């Protein structure tokens, strides 16, 4: 493959830089909408802080609810960064180039909120610093805190590394940006000029990070799984929890990735860079992960259901036929089986719309699944629940809880949007380099010979 003509490079850069700081009417609407939800959530949180966790529906039996379910969800989603920038890197998938920054942004945002959820769930958040002053490293909570912090910092570094050359491009190209911004660009570009030494160091740093981030990512979610697997409760007391969470997480992360690139492709007019090939490949990946997760579910629920041990019976009956049966079978059938069938049909997999629909189902299933792992399980302890006050034997989240939950999800999306207001969605230099080495086909972007037309709308 010949080196790309400088003109083409320039136009790619111009096009991809055009999203930075640009106002889109629809996006503004979304930002305002999400910000409003966040304000609502903040008010709800203040109420919760003042009145105590009594404003939630959590009680002594169901002592963890939506917040912890959402913690597991966010930690799970954060694995997508490691999947794209580490696993796909090792497997040599070239089509990952346009996806790297999106994946890292999702990771960064979700791990941030993953760190935030436990604080929402704490009875005495003002004593958070006790974790440092009185921390016991035997406690899985401390492992979780350290792992989340480590993964967050690792993700910041990994988000930043491929940004260095792009920052240099922004420094050089966006000469009409306000001086303060240009100062930031200049700082973040780290004097990048693309010489051999710099390229060597960057490659080295990225190689190291892609290896290091993988065990960190896996440990983050395994430890989250251990929060429940290290207890003696029926249903939780199982060794499958670690892998179960990790693969459920990869699946949910993949689904949310598809949804976000679908939105970005449309909203930021990135059709030439995020093509049906990406959706089809990610759809394939999602299918593989969903099949595997289905298999893990069969182990998690099928094995105890065959034995029907006394302690597990109550929970299993509740999930299969009882109060939570609707949710459970939704996650199993609509959240796993149907998406697998949909994604296994080639025609559907090549249609962005269908892939997005399948991802939506998977994501919804994954969210509900997190809840089903946490709360119904707590309502089936060893010693039968008796003489409980009304409201203690059932968990129906309150408005405050829903608001805070919704605003966490809104904040998660908002943070991603914010990151793409500051930085280009697609790693320009890597895409260019990838195309130079492997061609458009491999990277999955459209033929660059059409670029004249592209320039038309990008200017």
């Amino acid at each position, binding site marked *: 493959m010949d080196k790309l003509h400088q003109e083409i490079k320039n136009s790619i850069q111009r096009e991809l830089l055009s999203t930075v700081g640009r106002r889109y009417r629809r996006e503004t609407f979304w930002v305002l909408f999400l910000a409003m939800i966040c304000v609502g959530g903040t008010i709800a949180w203040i109420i919760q802080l003042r*009145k105590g966790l009594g404003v939630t529906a959590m009680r002594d039996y169901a002592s963890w609810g939506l917040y912890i379910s959402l913690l597991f969800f966010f930690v799970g989603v954060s694995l997508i960064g490691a999947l794209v920038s580490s696993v796909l890197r090792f497997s040599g998938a070239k089509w990952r180039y346009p996806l790297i920054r999106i994946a890292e942004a999702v990771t960064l945002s979700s791990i941030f909120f993953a760190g935030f959820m436990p604080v929402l769930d704490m*009875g005495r958040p003002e*004593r958070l610093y006790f974790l440092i002053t*009185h921390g016991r490293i035997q406690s899985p909570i401390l492992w979780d805190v350290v792992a989340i912090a480590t993964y967050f910092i690792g993700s910041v570094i990994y988000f930043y590394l491929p940004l260095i050359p792009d920052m240099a491009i922004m420094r050089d190209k966006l000469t009409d940006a306000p001086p303060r911004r240009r100062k930031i660009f200049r700082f973040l570009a780290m004097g990048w000029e693309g010489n051999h030494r710099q390229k060597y160091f960057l490659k080295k740093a990225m190689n190291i990070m892609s290896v290091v981030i993988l065990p960190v990512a896996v440990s983050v979610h395994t430890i989250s799984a251990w929060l429940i697997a*290290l*207890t003696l409760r029926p249903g939780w007391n199982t060794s499958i929890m670690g892998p179960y969470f990790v693969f459920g997480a990869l699946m949910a992360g993949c689904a949310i990735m598809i949804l976000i690139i679908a939105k970005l492709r449309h909203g930021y007019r990135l059709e030439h860079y995020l093509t049906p090939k990406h959706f089809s490949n990610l759809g394939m990946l999602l299918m593989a992960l969903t099949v595997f997760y289905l298999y893990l579910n069969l182990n998690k629920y099928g094995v105890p259901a065959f034995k029907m041990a006394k302690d597990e019976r109550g929970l299993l009956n509740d999930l299969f036929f009882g109060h939570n049966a609707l949710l459970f079978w939704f996650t199993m059938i609509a959240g796993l089986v149907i998406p697998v069938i949909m994604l296994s049909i080639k025609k559907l997999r090549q249609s962005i719309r269908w892939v997005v629909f399948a991802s939506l189902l998977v994501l919804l299933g994954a969210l509900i699944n997190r809840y089903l792992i946490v709360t119904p399980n707590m309502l089936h302890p060893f*010693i*039968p629940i008796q003489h409980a006050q009304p409201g203690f034997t059932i968990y129906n989240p309150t408005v405050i809880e829903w608001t805070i939950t919704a605003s966490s999800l809104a904040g998660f999306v908002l943070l991603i949007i914010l990151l793409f207001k500051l930085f280009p969605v697609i790693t320009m230099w890597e895409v260019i380099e990838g195309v130079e080495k492997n061609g458009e086909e491999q990277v999955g972007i459209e033929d660059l010979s059409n670029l004249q037309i592209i320039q038309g709308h990008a200017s």
Partner: protein
Amino acid sequence: MACGNNCTCNQDNPGNKDNSRRDFLIKGLMGGIGAAFLSGCSSNDKSKPVSNEKVNVLTHDGKLVAVDKSQVANFKPHISEEDVRTGIPGKKFVMVIDLAKCDGCGKCTKACNKMHYLPSNKKWIDVVEMQDSPEVAPYYFPKPCFHCDNPPCTKVCPVDATFKREDGIVAIDNERCIGCRFCMAACPYSVRLFNWTEPVKPNIEETTPAPERVIQSKKGCVEKCDFCPHMAREGKLPACVTHCPMNAIWFGDANEDAVTCYDGTTTKLSQLLEDGAAYRFMEDLGTEPRVYYLPPVNRTYNAKEIKIKNAE
């Protein structure tokens, strides 16, 4: 020098619950023995009515002095933060619950709630109706905290707010608890309670460090049965034991190999466990509870009347 050695003080009515002699000496030793202390109690509290009840007290130089009881009673030894974390020296508390005797009257719960100023909806000791299978007879199952020797709850606490003491008690420090509720998730016996809202409690100032306070309720913190260490320090039994009219609950010190029940009967722990074929609840979990149960054989009440109402 230990108190029993050449101290031969005695007191009137050395009955089962009156243990002030020994108690006084322990306190005396803790609070800094000797003349300073004695002069303290004789010069202060002149306003107190004199009870004419003399107690013999050992001074630091080994002399016996008789002082009025009223001057001793109010002496509270200073209990330090370290004391409440290591526990009462030399003790290893243990409870035995005789399921054959428990008729489910719930007086233990009431007494406990009264002692710890708990509202009726909180139960540190809960009497659960149990029936292992439909054909077997049901029985009442008083469930305090088991104060496990391998406690799943202290394992998971991130800030050392709940901890295992050397005297066997699993205590909670509500000046430390961050309210993560991991201990509640970890406890297989659903013993722990959380203060979801500001608890209703009297305005009583307690100078003791948090783990040994009578009132443990604190908003956003966890609480549970604490084996009444504040009573044990005074040589008294926990509230549930002293209010169980069926003598179903025994409490004592495993190091002394003795347990005592409501009517003051004190018996050899090892003998009781052996004769009663005692067991621990869900031994297979490996939590090593410090609460033993005597099986519900030859019940003294009509078991058929127990109605099991498990929440679904």
